[in-house]
């Protein structure tokens, strides 16, 4: 038997002496949270750090590592929340991020979160991490759900059989978290661990023989024997193994630069799962028999039904838009009764009244017809106020999106859309980031990191900007509410569906003419349905409000002031100063661009200017129109009403085309920057921007003429 523990001290010293692979200089301990997608890592991270990172009930919510500091009651250390992964292979970006962090950054302790109701599958990753030899503590999370399902988990037995500390926790309630962190805090890198001579890990070496990681010569594993980084990495991993109690099976390890063959990978998986089966069989008693339908399965029978799946998806979306946009929520006008507005419309009315009251309150403080009055009342109140008045409706929309995510519906939506997208060369896996794009395109693009296929990832990055984000919803709220008050929900839902259709068609074009090849098959975990957590919903809503207010107070504010200035000043009679809006700098600049939009039915300079400012942030379209409405149409009443928009030159058909154009033309600056970063290609970013503009123009042209044809 190779004696791998003859001289662990030397190896430890050498390992820490190597600069590239050595432990980074740190004054504080660093813990890493790792686990399968949707196992509750981010919930635990929030509990440990007191932060409010978004938590979702579907795979892929955390796609990049997040760093925080432990709350004092949990110790003194930094903690890193790594992306959720199923294994440590290197097929997707988030797997590479997690693997690289563990190997290169070498956290003091890795805390592996294992879902109690899904323990067998989750332990696969545990085995892979343990094989790296890093100090490891396993947290069996969601113990409350396991107990509710009648499961009994003997964590002490799990710990004994795995050879690593295992603690039961329920991150959402904080149960067991103190004990977990105390255990992690006491688990020091390489210091506290001793070689366990009875470990089956080592007993198995002779049995498995040549081909497995077999350390014949400890000298070979001194890091200074290896000049290349790969060799040093492997040596480091081997060195770590001397300090591990892990009792898992021997597995094939890559030798030098040669990766494992598929047969070896599969053999490794078989060995791990055989070991896991044994461990789980001795320490877990399930309250439910395999194959027995639980509540989630019964719901899925309906939700993913062959005939009902897509109609239900559309119905869910319609209900969401109906609650957000409908003026006649209960359909009472059909019976000659006064309509009752939807919660979104009702709240928007209140917000508009509040903004009007604020404007009326500060108006007497300024002398009318002065530049200061114009700046504050027309510029700031008109621009920022117009955007803020739609905050409640945005909150209602986000509430429903978060709710769908929280209960676990999003994965089902991806599954049922997979077959519909497949004829177009796309997979339901692309639909997951696209759905996220309904909230904001930026995190949606980052979610593309979970895709294994680089081609599919690039295509999906290209498609996400066609998904209507919350900021664009503000534009729809204004125009649909003003010009289509009786059918605002149907119009807005139509725009969302149009975005999906354009994205799917674009995907087909890319797959047919640019990236030929097979479509990545869909393999997706369906998390069990959960009752939404009020705290999670509240945090998501607060995040939306905070982000919206932040944008209103920064970029929208600045854009409103700039727009007010450019719409109030100009050259008249050879002198620069305050002028009539029709002679302003903005009117001249907008007038130069406006003819481009004339075939689309909104060839007026306010529309052109609003679209240009929308590149900074889509809410700026509304802010700009709010400022201009105050300047052009003082007698049209408060807010961006139909009268105010008509005074700016919008018609019903033109406003419909304007919404279509706003949906698809250039994404905002933040999205463009994210696309550039995620695709790592300026050309791809420019192609998306140009293509988006061309498609927006063409589809808006068609929309305008269809609208005219139907008598809008």
């Amino acid at each position, binding site marked *: 038997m190779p004696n791998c523990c003859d001289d662990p001290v030397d190896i430890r010293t050498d390992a820490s002496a190597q600069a590239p692979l050595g432990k980074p200089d740190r004054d504080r301990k660093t813990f890493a949270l790792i686990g399968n997608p949707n196992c509750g890592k981010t919930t635990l991270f929030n509990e440990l750090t007191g932060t409010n990172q978004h938590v979702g009930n579907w795979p892929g919510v955390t796609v990049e590592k997040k760093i925080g500091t432990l709350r004092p009651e949990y110790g003194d250390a930094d903690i890193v929340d790594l992306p959720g992964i*199923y*294994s440590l*292979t290197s*097929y*997707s970006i988030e797997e590479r991020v997690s693997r690289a962090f563990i190997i290169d950054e070498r956290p003091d302790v890795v805390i592996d979160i294992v879902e109690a*109701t*899904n*323990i*067998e*599958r989750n332990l*696969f*990753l545990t085995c892979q991490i343990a094989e790296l030899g890093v100090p490891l503590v396993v947290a069996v999370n969601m113990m409350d759900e396991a107990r509710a399902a009648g499961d009994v988990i003997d964590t002490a037995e799990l710990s004994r059989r795995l050879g690593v500390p295992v603690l039961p926790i329920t991150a959402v309630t904080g149960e067991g978290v103190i004990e977990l962190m105390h255990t992690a805090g006491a688990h020091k890198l390489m210091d506290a661990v001793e070689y366990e001579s009875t470990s089956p890990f080592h007993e198995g070496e002779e049995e498995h023989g040549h081909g497995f990681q077999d350390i014949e010569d400890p000298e070979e594993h001194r890091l200074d024997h290896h000049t290349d980084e790969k060799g040093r990495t492997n040596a480091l991993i081997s060195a770590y193994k001397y300090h591990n109690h892990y009792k898992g099976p021997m597995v094939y390890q890559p030798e030098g630069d040669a990766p494992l063959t*598929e047969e070896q*990978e*599969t053999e490794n*998986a*078989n060995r791990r*799962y055989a070991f896991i089966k044994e461990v789980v069989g001795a320490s877990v008693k*399930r309250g439910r028999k*395999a*194959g027995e*339908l639980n509540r*989630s*399965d019964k719901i*899925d*029978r309906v939700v*993913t*039904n*062959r005939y009902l*799946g897509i109609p239900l998806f559309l119905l869910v979306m319609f209900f969401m838009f109906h609650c957000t946009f409908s003026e006649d929520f209960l359909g009472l006008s059909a019976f000659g009764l006064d309509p009752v507005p939807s919660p979104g419309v009702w709240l928007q009315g209140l917000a508009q009244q509040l903004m009007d009251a604020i404007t009326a309150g500060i108006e007497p403080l300024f002398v009318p017809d002065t530049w200061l009055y114009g700046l504050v009342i027309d510029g700031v109140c008109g621009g920022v106020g117009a955007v803020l008045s739609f905050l409640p409706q945005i909150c209602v929309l986000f509430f429903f999106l978060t709710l769908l995510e929280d209960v676990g519906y999003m*994965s*089902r939506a991806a*599954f*049922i859309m*997979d*077959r519909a997208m*497949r004829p177009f060369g796309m*997979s*339901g896996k692309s639909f997951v980031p696209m759905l996220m794009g309904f909230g904001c395109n930026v995190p949606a693009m980052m979610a593309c990191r979970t895709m*294994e*296929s680089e081609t599919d990832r690039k295509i999906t990055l290209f498609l996400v900007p066609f998904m209507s984000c919350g900021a664009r919803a503000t534009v729809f709220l204004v125009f649909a509410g003003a010009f289509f008050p009786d059918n605002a929900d149907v119009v807005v839902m139509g725009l969302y569906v149009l975005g999906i259709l354009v994205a799917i068609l674009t995907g087909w074009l890319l797959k047919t003419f640019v990236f030929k090849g097979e*479509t*990545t*098959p*869909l*393999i*997706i*975990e*369906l*998390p*069990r349905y959960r009752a939404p957590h009020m705290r999670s919903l509240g945090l998501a809503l607060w995040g939306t409000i905070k982000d919206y207010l932040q944008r209103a107070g920064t970029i929208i504010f600045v854009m409103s002031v700039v727009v007010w200035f450019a719409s109030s000043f100009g050259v008249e009679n050879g002198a620069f100063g305050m002028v009539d809006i029709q002679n302003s700098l903005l009117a001249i600049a907008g007038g130069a661009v406006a003819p481009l939009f004339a075939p689309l039915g909104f060839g007026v300079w306010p529309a052109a200017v609003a679209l240009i400012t929308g590149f900074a942030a889509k809410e700026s379209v509304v802010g700009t129109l709010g400022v201009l409405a105050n300047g052009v149409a003082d007698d049209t009443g408060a807010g961006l009403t139909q009268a105010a928009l008509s005074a700016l030159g919008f018609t019903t058909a033109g406003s419909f085309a304007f919404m279509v154009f706003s949906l698809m033309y250039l994404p905002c600056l933040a999205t463009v920057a994210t696309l550039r970063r995620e695709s790592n290609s300026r050309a791809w970013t420019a192609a998306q921007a140009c293509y988006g503009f061309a498609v927006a123009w063409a589809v808006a042209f068609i929309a305008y003429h269809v609208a005219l044809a139907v008598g809008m």
Partner: protein
Amino acid sequence: MILGKAAAGTSHTITACHSTGPTRARLDSLGLVEGERVDVLSSSWAGLILEIKGSRLALCKAVADTMEVSD
């Protein structure tokens, strides 16, 4: 038989998997390995929903058709 043709409510043992590359690696990591028992919870035009190792996995038809199972 092919897993893609399995009916809802049936149980099978995986006997072979003909996927390759990242798909194979993903199936391995999710426990869809030879000898493993799977319960088909739902089978539709979109694909299959399986219970394996206590978790629910949705597979598209294309993947399910690469897997051979026995009763």
